[in-house]
């Protein structure tokens, strides 16, 4: 038993964090609320160059041949940045599904998916390929072969579309584990969002003064943020463990993913609540950046199965009364 990442894995994470610090600051996320694509612009191509988009693809298909254990830390960083891109759907969910992922790994083709049961695919209007649930597997469709119906997410930087096929798929591929990879990816992003909201709030309450002292010196504020930190502390190991279980084909991997997604969703919602409260009125303003991360967290907590849905799955596995389903 050795529950830690390697130096290489941490270095890959750090490199992506540096990149996103530069290429995806809050201004880029804010711009995605109103620009034509809802996407980040340059960051996507940089992520392709770094190998992130094709991390799970084999080297023969232009990928890095890495695993979800390598990718989970990187996805966490994309959450920290609230990256407005279908990175989970592309890099975690569909790259392992495609027969030839060369173009996707290189970023020449963007792939999104509507595989979480909601029928909604994020950023589908600029994706070349859209993966839908098929009767015998995952159906890979060209964008020209689907009709898209824009739906408004609470997160304006998350362009959502209901997808209606107009023609048959280009291919139907085995979808084994696609949902679990999506839920894991969302859970990882929720960890990153959680940490971002906590960082913003810790910095703010140390600086903001009322009654002649920093508001962060008040115990009521400290205890809110300690609770937020607690939630993050006891969500993170479940997400990393689920990444390992999926990578190594653990027979209980689906349960491990459900634990991870349930815990990460609830933890991010709690931190969001505490972050907003501890900011006071400024956090409630549209101009302040907190809401960019808060709304992404709300959206991701709800998608790929919300906390209660995942707990109901676990309840069935544990043989608990079906009232939970």
């Amino acid at each position: 038993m050795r529950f830690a990442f390697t130096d290489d894995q941490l270095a890959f994470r750090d490199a992506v964090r540096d990149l996103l610090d530069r290429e995806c600051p809050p201004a880029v996320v804010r711009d995605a609320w109103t620009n034509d694509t809802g996407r980040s612009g340059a960051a996507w191509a940089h992520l392709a160059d770094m190998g992130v988009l094709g991390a799970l693809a084999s080297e023969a298909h232009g990928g890095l041949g890495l695993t979800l254990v390598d990718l989970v830390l990187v996805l966490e960083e994309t959450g920290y940045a609230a990256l407005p891109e279908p990175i989970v759907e592309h890099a975690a969910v569909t790259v392992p599904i495609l027969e030839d992922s060369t173009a996707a790994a290189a970023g020449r083709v963007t792939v999104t998916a509507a595989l979480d049961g909601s029928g909604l695919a994020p950023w589908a209007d600029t994706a070349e390929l859209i993966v839908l649930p098929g009767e015998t597997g995952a159906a890979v469709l060209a964008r020209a072969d689907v009709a898209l119906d824009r739906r408004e997410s609470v997160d304006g930087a998350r362009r959502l579309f209901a997808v209606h096929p107009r023609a048959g798929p280009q291919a139907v591929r085995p979808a084994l584990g696609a949902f679990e990879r999506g839920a894991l990816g969302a859970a990882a992003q929720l960890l990153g969002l959680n940490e971002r909201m906590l960082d913003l709030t810790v910095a703010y309450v140390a600086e903001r003064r009322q009654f002649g002292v920093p508001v962060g010196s008040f115990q009521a504020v400290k205890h809110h943020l300690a609770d937020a930190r607690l939630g993050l502390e006891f969500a993170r190991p479940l997400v990393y463990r689920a990444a390992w279980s999926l990578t190594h084909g653990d027979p209980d991997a689906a349960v491990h993913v459900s634990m991870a997604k349930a815990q990460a969703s609830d933890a991010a919602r709690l931190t969001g609540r505490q972050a907003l409260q501890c900011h006071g009125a400024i956090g409630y303003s549209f101009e302040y950046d907190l809401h960019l991360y808060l709304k992404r967290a709300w959206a991701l907590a709800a998608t790929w199965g919300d906390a209660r849905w995942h707990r109901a799955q676990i309840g069935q596995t544990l043989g608990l009364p079906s009232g939970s389903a």
Partner: protein
Amino acid sequence: MDLTFSPAEKAFRAECRSWLTAHAPHDLPSGDTREGFAAHLAWERKLFGARFAVVSWPEAYGGRGASAMEWLIFEEEYYRAGAPQRVTQNGIFLLAPTVFDFGTRAQQDQILPRMAAAQDLWCQGWSEPNAGSDLAAIESRAERDEPGGGWRLSGQKTWTTRGAFCTHLFGLFRTDPSAERHRGLTYFLVPLEAPGVTVRGFGRLDGDEGFAEVFFDDVFVHDDEVLGEVHQGWGVAMATTGSERGLTLRSPGRFLATAARLVDLARRSGDAAAPTLVDSVVADWIDAEAYRWQTFSTVTRMTDGENLGAESSLTKVFWSELDVRLHEHALALLGAAAELADADPHDWMKGYQFALSGPIYAGTNEIQRNVIAERVLGLPRR
């Protein structure tokens, strides 16, 4: 990352499971009563005889030299088998790590084997009537007795768990009254049979005589019974609180076992259990797993030589509040029967009362949240 157990770890688990399943008692009275304590001592000595009392200690002191991971495995198997809480815990989990770190070789040789064998039984003498969470406010004194080669203790300790049944006490006394609060304290090891010591047991909220107050009236202790340096007791004591808040006192095994019992109770409740309650039960079960995996991560970091420090406050808040939730949800499943001691083979109401002490002892959770905010998150102290 490798989340499998090694063949040696698996073999160790199998050995623990086999022995504990065969020998763990399920019907001992509470170890926090006089008669229960005696029954528990028999169990502790049986554990020692099978070299399961202190698996992580060196063999010379009665252990097996087990790794931290193996110790966690032992704990999981111990509670999985339904074995009772350890009445020796304040010695083996709180004092012993400090003796390993700060004790002289002579102190280690003298104290540890007798502690492992449950011959000497240690209680903690920290809290006083006017010093609880604010431990540095203690007033009990030790005055120098130069001719005797030791110290003379006076004052009062209280909330001393199982103090009325133990043979020895480890505690903090003020040796330099002129020094600032945290300085001038010294860590003493005191035989309770020493002349001038008076121990008075008293009842806890749950009815057991688990508390004691301990009075010191000019009690002589020899220089050999100082742990660490004179006036350096605060630093020595803080090493012990790290153990108490962290994983040695309350490892995940205990909560995994309680969560498993809660899931079993929910299963037996069938459709009488409201969906929201079943959801809470699953959330508790996930939390117990989260504590387990967070601990594996922590142990990996410790093995790599990292110092954890204030992070033990995160752990203490988490397990103590999880324990309360586990019991609250069990009581909710029991409904009107919750008040009955025999509503379920497991006495959940008794367990609930004990769980409620968790957010209080070892530094209240309010203090722990301050520590998390100030020392983990870096918020301003004032």
